[in-house]
């Protein structure tokens, strides 16, 4: 590393020059970038953001608020990374850049500190998280919500109003680490279900659907105890130290249950878990363990699509699939979920334009950058309006929430589901 980091406030986590210099500014990535697509501006493009990082790295400019604003607008969707012929590890660079911004001693960072504090105390503490989410979950499925919407109480352009639009309508019971899942008779193998933080609290239904899909293939799912948040939200926010702590805890917890595959039904978590080796690169012992760990991690669609046993599934519906960024771009999985949906008897898979352009949810982004988030959501709403699906399927909780809002914006009544939920339902209908 040497003097590379000397213009950054946190030299040990400075973006590596070898990473930055891989960008030859060919520009092939710009139109894959949602924020460039919306703004048409170079500073809101991957190439622009990398160029600014390099300029800071070389001491040409300081870490000013103007620079930070361009980085802040980045969704960390990694669409740029997937199309870059030069292999610029954009995701890694941006995590390191965010770590610098968070460490910078300038003023006006109160909000960032607060965010970090909340994140640290929420996602890693199951009890606190459960207590915090409980009222939200209650509200999501309540009569109060329906009445409030009817009365127009939430039409205010407030944070509450925005949140309301995104909540699932029947969140179901949570599923947390250590919870029991129905026993599968004569199971032929076992798999760990990664429960996550918000996912487990608000999308317990999805986890259960995944477990049932696995069960029909003779696989016993296990919500192994001791696992915690994957750390993605913290890493994206630049809180690498904290993310590393979570990674170590997950590695330890899931090593205890053996070698079974780790099935993840939240694309963002899956991408993070698969990249633990990179996150822990500075820690020799854990980096090695992380590699063995990552080799076990599979996205639910990826895993199920490859199972030799085909379970009959039937469901008459027009379904559109929207790629979660961290599935399509970070994990490069595009075909598996489509194959599963197209394999459902009676299901018509309809494609929209730009199904792999970020929906604007992006973890906490929707709250921090409401205007860009809304602009991207509006594109999805317009796309849905054109193809008029019965259901919108995706594979990540944040996206699901954003699509709830987009569908409503489009004036449609389509339901928003996880691929596993739809598959589970279709299998159940086919008599499984």
């Amino acid at each position, binding site marked *: 590393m040497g003097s590379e980091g000397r213009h950054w406030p946190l030299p040990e986590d400075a973006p590596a020059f070898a990473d930055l*210099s*891989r*960008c*030859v*500014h*060919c*520009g*092939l*990535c*710009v*139109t*894959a970038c949602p924020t460039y697509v919306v*703004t*048409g*501006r*170079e*500073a809101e*493009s991957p*190439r*622009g953001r990398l*160029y*600014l990082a390099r*300029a800071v790295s070389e001491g*040409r*400019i300081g870490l*000013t608020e*103007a*620079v930070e604003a*361009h980085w802040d607008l980045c969704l960390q969707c990694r669409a740029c990374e997937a*199309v*870059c*012929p*030069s*292999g*610029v590890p954009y995701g890694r660079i941006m995590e390191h850049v965010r770590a610098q911004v968070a460490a910078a001693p300038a003023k006006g960072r109160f909000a960032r500190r607060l965010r970090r504090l909340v994140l640290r105390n929420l996602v890693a503490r199951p009890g606190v998280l459960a207590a915090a989410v409980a009222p939200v979950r209650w509200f999501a499925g309540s009569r109060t919500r329906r009445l409030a919407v009817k009365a127009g109480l939430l039409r205010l352009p407030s944070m509450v109003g925005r949140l309301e639009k995104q909540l699932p309508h029947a969140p179901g019971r949570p599923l947390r680490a250590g919870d029991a899942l129905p026993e599968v008779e004569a199971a032929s193998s076992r798999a760990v279900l990664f429960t996550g933080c918000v996912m487990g609290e608000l999308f317990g239904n999805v986890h259960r659907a995944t477990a049932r899909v696995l069960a029909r293939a003779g696989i016993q799912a296990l919500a192994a105890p001791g696992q915690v948040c994957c750390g993605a939200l913290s890493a994206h926010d630049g809180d690498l130290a904290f993310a590393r702590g979570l990674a170590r805890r997950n590695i330890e917890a899931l090593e205890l249950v053996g070698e079974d595959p780790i099935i993840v039904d939240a694309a963002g978590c899956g991408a993070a878990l698969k990249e633990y080796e990179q996150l822990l690169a500075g820690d020799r012992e854990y980096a090695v363990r992380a590699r063995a760990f990552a080799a076990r991690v599979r996205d639910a669609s990826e895993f199920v699509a490859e199972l030799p046993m085909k379970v009959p599934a039937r469901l008459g519906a027009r379904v559109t699939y929207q790629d979660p960024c961290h599935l399509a771009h970070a994990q490069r999985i595009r075909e598996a979920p489509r194959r599963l949906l197209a394999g459902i008897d009676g299901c018509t898979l309809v494609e929209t334009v730009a199904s792999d352009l970020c929906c604007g949810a992006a973890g906490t982004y929707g709250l921090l950058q409401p205007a860009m988030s809304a602009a991207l959501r509006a594109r999805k709403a317009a796309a849905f309006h054109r193809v008029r699906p019965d259901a919108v399927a995706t594979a990540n909780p944040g996206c699901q929430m954003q699509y709830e809002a987009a569908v409503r914006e489009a004036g449609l009544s389509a339901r928003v589901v996880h691929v596993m939920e739809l598959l589970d339902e279709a299998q159940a209908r086919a008599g499984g």
Partner: protein
Amino acid sequence: MTTRRALVDRLASVVGPSNVVHRREDLLVYEFDGTIEQSLPDAVVFPGSTEEVAAVVRACNSLGVAVTPRGAGTGLSGGAVPAQRGVVVATGRMRRILEIDPLERLAVAEPGVPNIQLSEAAAEHGLFYAPDPSSQKACTIGGNVAENAGGPHCLALGVTTNHVLGLEIVTADGEVVTLGGRTCETSGYDLRGVFIGSEGTLGIATRIVVRLLPVPAAVVTLLGVFDSVERASATVSAIIAGGMVPAALEMIDRLCLQAAEAGLQCGYPADAGAVLLVELDGVDEVVGPQAALATAACLAHGAREVRTARDPAERELLWKGRKGAIGSLGRLAPNYYILDGVVPRSRLVEVMARVSEVAKEYGLLVANVFHAGDGNLHPLLLFDDREPGARARVLEAGAHIMRACVEAGGALSGEHGIGFEKRAFMPWLYGEADLENMERLRGVFGNGGRFNPCKLLPTGTGCGEMGHNQAAMRAAGPEAYV
């Protein structure tokens, strides 16, 4: 001298304050394009309409500030780099496709529309826009017009100028003018043709009418795998001599295909000396026999293997490698200097040998991609700009290579344009009188040398950084070559 403040205020009064940027951090990302050139503008402005473009140009003229048009900044000759600072006029807000007329088979677009979107929008009518630069996902139609861009599929179908019917432009004087129209033939001087390829030195295209073609019924894509560039080149000559004009005929050398394979997993055998991509299209009855002939030609010239793409996905993968080949070189070195020489096809092998020789002399790694069918070569010299003296060495080696192309009876640019860095070489091809005439033509559109200055023509003052390239040129041979 106008102060920056006054300039920004004046521009803001035309396009609104949110459409002018002027902080250093915001300007920095407009100091470059796809090349290694750099120069920081004083302001960047995003006009939203033809009228705003015209008003911006007039404002800059009245303040005596240089104007440089910019599309997506993928250019490979420094065209969008504001050599004398001043104002960059970016087309990022003018990105609408205004019309697709399937009966007339044409489209009308604003200049900032990415090339590929024309084909995407025309697809529902079974039509497409033919010129397909490798950068087509990002580069704009306005930038294509300015550079008269080509692409792999331009071998049979022709380059940008063969597909643009008409233009609305704002001249360097700030006047709105229409050139050409909606049909192929217009009477009088072909000013449309003059503007296309003028590298943003005559004005800014604000509306572009392009011809659309029907998507061919059948397509076959072959990948010939060779042990050497020589064998692949001989195959190219044989295919063309056989009377066939494939839709595309592209060659990639070892270094380049290795980088592409590493970056894009496109299925190129990494131990090959060169691969040849041959695409044939048209009706089934013709394409089948042509593919057989092309395959035979490959094998007759020592191809180790000839693969045929089995489906559109496989075809796309083969093309992904070719289209990402240049960008993938970032895996090998932090910088590359890309050349764009054209030589008669028959001299390709000989010039290639010279290219390797020069690279060796200067201790540089060189990778090559070719639009082999047109004799258009793109040697890419790899280097690290942080190394003292590296840039000068690369420029000098580049000058020797360009010289070799000219001496072989070729040209200075196949498709990337002359731009900033290659303008010093113009006297190799043109005498003083020719250059003067070009200068006069430029003057007709207005400007007084302040419109995209220091580009295309070797005249003009105050282009400081030009110094090193002139030195490079002198090293490569006498100035007056013709």
